[in-house]
């Protein structure tokens, strides 16, 4: 609990503004086309802000910093990959996809392959990936509300799910475009401004960056009291003196000073531990106990920590290729007026994301200095929320804490909105109805309730890691469909369907094993927790092979489709040559 009195007003404010812009959009959105793609009249700069606003999720706003704090350098591949994914999208699919004129991924599949069942399959994967991505957003909302107010975790998830569902159901995507564009600027302000203040403070009271990477454990900078909410086992790397109120190592203590030997100590729920300034931080069991120098080194490993080189390459593959397969990312490209604008938009997105991603690292690194108690509780995802209050103090600290809380809420609201628009879009056209405005509203309810149920059921997971798994599934299903569909005439419906099933199925299975199964180690753990390195090549191979085997079933009009995907719009209008279209 950061205890900032400004956090709640800031969260309420950002929510009200979001709803207000949504309501404004409601007045001007009239038909289904308005709902789904904002009638394709959104300018490149608006669109780029909206894309970035939608894309910067809880994983980016909270998760990256939390992972950096825990695991160090290797985690920076997440934001680099999240950005590079847009470059891959620009190079291979941005303009053709816009020119295809399809609304959604299933639309693209049907348009290119003339097959209803591949369309259905694509729909299933849109829903699967969308929900997989929504769950950590809602959990992040719960974490935020718990951190800043002490409210129970389910409340935040319910608040965000309700606001977003209502907003999506009432306004559709045009209002969402304005909401998203606003939210990018809200988020970048909320993360950048406190980061700059933190850096200035840190410069004045520390010995420079060397102190961050010295071969010693993180230490409490000041006397720190930690309230442990859930039973936690911690590992003390060095002997440490601690004042304990509560049950530790099976015995009750009432404000007694204990001297912890190096090793494992069990802290029961609701214990209060007070550490003196300069004490080495005991870290939660299960966290690899990295001293600062090891933390700063590359290839320490993310996730299971085994085979870090493989895990790194697999993560790179998943994030670089997964972005284009995220349903809420693609739907946004249809709002560009033409293929050229789609390219310009993507280029601007690269700038906006690059600026944003400079900052989470600051929180992750300084978190080890100013909020090391998070290493003890294991709740490093909260570092962005906790750090400004912990490091700055006074009125400024409280204001900054309010600002980051609002930014975090902007992140949940915007990403959840985008995902929900996409999921309810395909649900309303393919599953629950035939695409009328009423179907869309009904679908929005379903799209919101299911992930909320999942978020309330599943245990707390690392936000960024679950999102990383969603990327792996997208990279193993929609990425090959889009790349081959756009550039290779030989793709058949059978090939695409087989590739989607095998690639998407294998990666989804790996996700399930990682999230629900026992903790795996060694090669099994590495292959399951970072599956992209094997599932992506398999998906491509299956798609190509199965297409070759069914080469007779290449759609007869593939030439026309290719022309539509790749011919610049200036050919279709404007110039006197009105060729065969």
């Amino acid at each position, binding site marked *: 609990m950061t205890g900032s009195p400004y956090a709640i007003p800031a969260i309420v404010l950002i929510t009200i503004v979001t709803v207000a812009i949504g309501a404004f959009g409601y007045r001007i959105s009239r038909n289904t086309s308005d709902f789904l793609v904002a009638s394709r009249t959104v300018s490149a700069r608006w669109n780029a802000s909206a894309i970035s606003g939608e894309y910067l999720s809880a994983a980016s706003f909270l998760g990256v910093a939390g992972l950096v704090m825990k695991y160090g*350098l290797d985690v*920076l*591949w997440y934001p*680099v990959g999240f*950005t*590079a994914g*847009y*470059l*891959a999208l*620009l*190079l*291979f699919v941005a*303009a053709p996809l816009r020119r295809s004129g399809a609304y959604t991924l299933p639309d693209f599949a049907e348009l290119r392959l003339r097959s209803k069942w591949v369309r259905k399959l694509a729909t299933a994967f849109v829903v699967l990936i969308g929900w997989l991505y929504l769950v950590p957003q809602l959990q992040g909302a719960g974490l935020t509300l718990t951190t800043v107010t002490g409210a129970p975790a389910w409340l935040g998830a319910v608040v965000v799910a309700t606001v977003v569902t209502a907003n999506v159901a009432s306004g559709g995507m045009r209002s969402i475009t304005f909401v998203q564009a606003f939210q990018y600027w809200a988020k970048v302000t909320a993360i950048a401004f406190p980061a700059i203040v933190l850096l200035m403070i840190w410069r004045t009271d520390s010995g*420079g*960056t*060397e102190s961050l*990477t010295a071969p010693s454990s993180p230490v409490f900078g000041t006397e720190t009291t930690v309230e442990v909410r859930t039973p936690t086992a911690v590992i003390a790397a060095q002997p440490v003196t601690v004042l304990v109120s509560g049950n530790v190592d099976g015995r009750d203590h009432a404000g007694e000073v204990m001297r912890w030997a190096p090793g494992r100590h069990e802290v029961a729920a609701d214990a209060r531990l007070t550490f003196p300034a300069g004490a080495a931080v005991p870290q939660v069991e299960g966290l690899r106990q990295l001293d600062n120098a090891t933390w*700063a*080194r*590359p*290839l320490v490993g993310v996730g299971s920590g085994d085979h870090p*080189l493989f895990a*790194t*390459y697999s993560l*790179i593959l998943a994030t670089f290729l997964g972005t284009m397969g995220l349903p809420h990312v693609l739907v946004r490209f249809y709002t560009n007026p033409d293929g*050229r604008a789609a*390219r*310009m938009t*993507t*280029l601007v997105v*690269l*700038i906006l*994301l*690059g*600026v944003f*991603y*400079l900052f989470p*690292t600051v929180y992750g690194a300084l978190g080890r200095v100013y909020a090391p108690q998070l290493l003890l509780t294991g709740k490093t995802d909260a570092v962005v929320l906790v750090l400004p209050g912990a490091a700055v103090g006074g009125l400024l600290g409280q204001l900054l804490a309010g600002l980051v809380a609002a930014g975090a809420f902007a992140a949940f609201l915007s990403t959840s909105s985008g995902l929900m628009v996409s999921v309810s879009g395909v649900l309303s056209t393919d599953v629950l109805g035939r695409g009328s405005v009423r179907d869309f509203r009904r679908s929005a309810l379903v799209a919101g309730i299911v992930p909320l149920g999942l978020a309330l059921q599943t245990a707390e997971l690392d936000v960024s890691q679950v999102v990383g798994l969603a990327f792996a599934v997208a990279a193993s299903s929609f990425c090959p469909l889009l790349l081959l569909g756009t*550039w290779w005439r030989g793709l058949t419906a059978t090939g695409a369907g087989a590739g989607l099933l095998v690639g998407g199925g294998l990666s989804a299975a790996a996700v399930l094993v990682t999230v629900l199964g026992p903790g795996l180690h060694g090669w099994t753990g590495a292959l399951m927790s970072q599956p992209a390195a094997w599932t992506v090549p398999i998906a491509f191979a299956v798609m190509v092979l199965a297409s070759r085997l069914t080469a007779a079933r290449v759609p007869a009009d593939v*030439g026309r489709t*290719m*022309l539509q995907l*790749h*011919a*610049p719009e*200036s*050919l279709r209008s404007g*110039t*006197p*040559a*009105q*060729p*065969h279209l």
Partner: protein
Amino acid sequence: MSVPGHDDVSRPGPVSPPDPPSPGPPQRVRVVLAGHQRVRADPVLEIEEQTQVGDLLVRGLIRTQLALALRLAAVVAALFGVLPLLFALAPGLSRVRVFGLQLPWLLLGGLAYPVLLAVGWVYVRLAERNERDFVEMMDQS
């Protein structure tokens, strides 16, 4: 869209390559001869034939654009793909400090983004040039 000889209805002419690409709205033809007017070749045949020319051009455009995208993707793959290996083989890199930051942190935490942007910018320029060339070729053919 003025191809010499195109309006010259009096000369049926062998199918003159390159054929005008437009089958769409029929060309306005000024008929000067009172007598028997030779209709141009079977329109269906002509469309197919012109589609073939157009088809070749489109295939060319797709190949060019794909080659461009693949080349730039290879540049990115080389630049970024080499980093983990480099970090593994040369752990001494971490001792190199620029502005007080260890080199790997500087590369992944900051420099990666302008590099991605630069590649994107080059792509947009070249891809648009390819498309302009394509449009010009279609106009001339």
